[in-house]
């Protein structure tokens, strides 16, 4: 799994690719969020368009990331879900928990 960050109008967009699974993928996500929060970057848009696979550990890591950012007064949103990830969030009832976007410009503009 790879994660790279870029700044768009005050929002940190994290472009993720590969698998978010137990082990490396989940750790990269966790470390990325921790680093961003440590730098005070609390408006985070996770672009999951190139994420091919998420297991239960990865889902849990997304939930933990969401909670960590929210607890620090920030916002974390998801962008470009693949069908697989979309379906997983549906069956785990998390689809309505996350703020999910499919257009980056609109997503960036939606942050407070």
């Amino acid at each position: 799994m790879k994660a790279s960050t870029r700044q768009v109008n005050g929002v940190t967009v994290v472009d993720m690719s590969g698998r978010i699974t137990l082990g490396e993928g989940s750790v990269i996500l966790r470390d990325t969020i921790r680093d961003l929060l440590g730098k005070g970057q609390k408006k985070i848009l996770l672009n999951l368009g190139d994420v091919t696979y998420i297991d239960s550990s990865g889902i849990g890591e997304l939930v933990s990331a969401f909670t960590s950012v929210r607890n620090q007064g920030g916002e974390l949103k998801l962008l470009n879900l693949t069908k697989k990830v979309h379906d997983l969030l549906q069956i785990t009832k998390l689809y309505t928990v996350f703020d999910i976007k499919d257009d980056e410009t609109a997503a960036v503009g939606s942050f407070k």
Partner: protein
Amino acid sequence: MRNRVSYTLDSTLDSVNKAESTAAQFAARAGFNADEQDNIAMAVREAAVNAVLHGNAHDPAKKVFLVCERTVDTLIITVTDQGKGLDPSCVPDPLSPENLMKGSGRGIFLIRAFMDEVRFRNTHPGTEITLIKHVGGKPANAKEETT
């Protein structure tokens, strides 16, 4: 590919990946479509994760046993650990409001969601979980069993 394979695996994440890829190959050969193959592979991955992490607790002295078998219309995959045993009735519901935002606890839920039948058996010590998927869908008498 043979109709039945069995592996004795170490309690490592590499074993989880091995179980997942083996299940995916068996599912493909059994005639499941791409989505079903992915779902079966994920269910087996989750079962293997439970075996390595929660069952054997990464203990290098303990093994995970994987058996994949296919019949004309059914895929049967068994994952067994040598841990303390698991009572599936004690696993919290990850969909309940108090658990929804927890960072873990969704593995068995996903297994149940993706397979037609799921059976748990305490092997004293250890847990055996049998995952069954029928080509063409779930039969009317499919159910979950615990012994």
